């Protein structure tokens, strides 16, 4: 029996729209980097845009929108570990000697 081709998991139009959105967000990241409105704001904007871009890539290009709950559970373990690493280091910053 001849193997049949499967239906594409991401339509061409959607893929192109996501790609264009990623390019637009890259332009926004560079523009945000040129802002001199304060450290915290600049860093926050850059990280928020990066998170949105990563989410778009993950959700559409990596096909997370079609994954089972178990995959999200596995990813949550990774995200939690990174959060523990990040939060765990902060006391060291707070209590460091001047």
């Amino acid at each position, binding site marked *: 029996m001849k193997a049949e081709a499967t239906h594409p998991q991401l339509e*061409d139009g959607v893929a192109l729209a996501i790609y264009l959105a*990623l390019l637009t967000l890259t332009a926004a990241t560079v523009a945000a*980097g040129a802002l001199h409105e304060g450290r915290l704001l600049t860093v926050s904007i850059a990280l928020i845009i990066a998170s949105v871009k990563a989410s778009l890539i993950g959700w559409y290009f990596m096909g997370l929108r079609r994954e089972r709950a178990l995959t999200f559970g596995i990813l949550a373990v990774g995200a939690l570990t990174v959060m523990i690493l990040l939060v765990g280091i902060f006391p060291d910053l707070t209590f460091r000697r001047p």
Partner: protein
Amino acid sequence: MQASAAIAEDSEWGQAEIGKLGLWLFLVSEVMLFGAFFASYLSTRLGNADCALGVTVWPEAGHLPGLVMATVNTLILLTSSYTMVRAISGAERGDRGRFRTNLLATIFLGAAFLVVKTFEYRLKISHGYYPGSELAKANNGLSIFLSYYFLMTSLHGLHVVAGLVWNLVVLAAPPELPAEKLALKAEYAGLYWHFVDVVWVFLFPLFYLV
């Protein structure tokens, strides 16, 4: 009754899905690897006035050309992710021509990323921006920043190389391979390639813009 339903549900796990789950587990280990470096980098820059987060650490000389190269590399990687998606959809449709053309474009773009990165490293080194240089010895903050910069961007570069090798292996798949199997191979390679892109999405602002 519930147990038998659960078993029936378990049996829905095909070989392809089990393979993908294994790949996701591997990617999570990569998230932890890069996450540890990102956490260390962020805390170092938050706690060090010499290279405080929110202030561009790069000295003026050579910063703009370096930023342009990094921006070009961002566009290259994003475009390669898009061509990878098109390659996978080509494989899924059984359109070998579309699959090969787009996968070749992905490989070309990945190689272009490494070439631009090499030129960027040359630029940095020509200005003395490397750990252990006289300039770095005179500026602790810059020295620390440069150590992280070379460590994390070269680690990412190694992942790009690994992704290229993986893509080449998929490209070399025999023509008699059924479309479904080719699509699965392409999807596995694509997952890894997109992950490499995601890492760069965070490296770019944190090392060039803030």
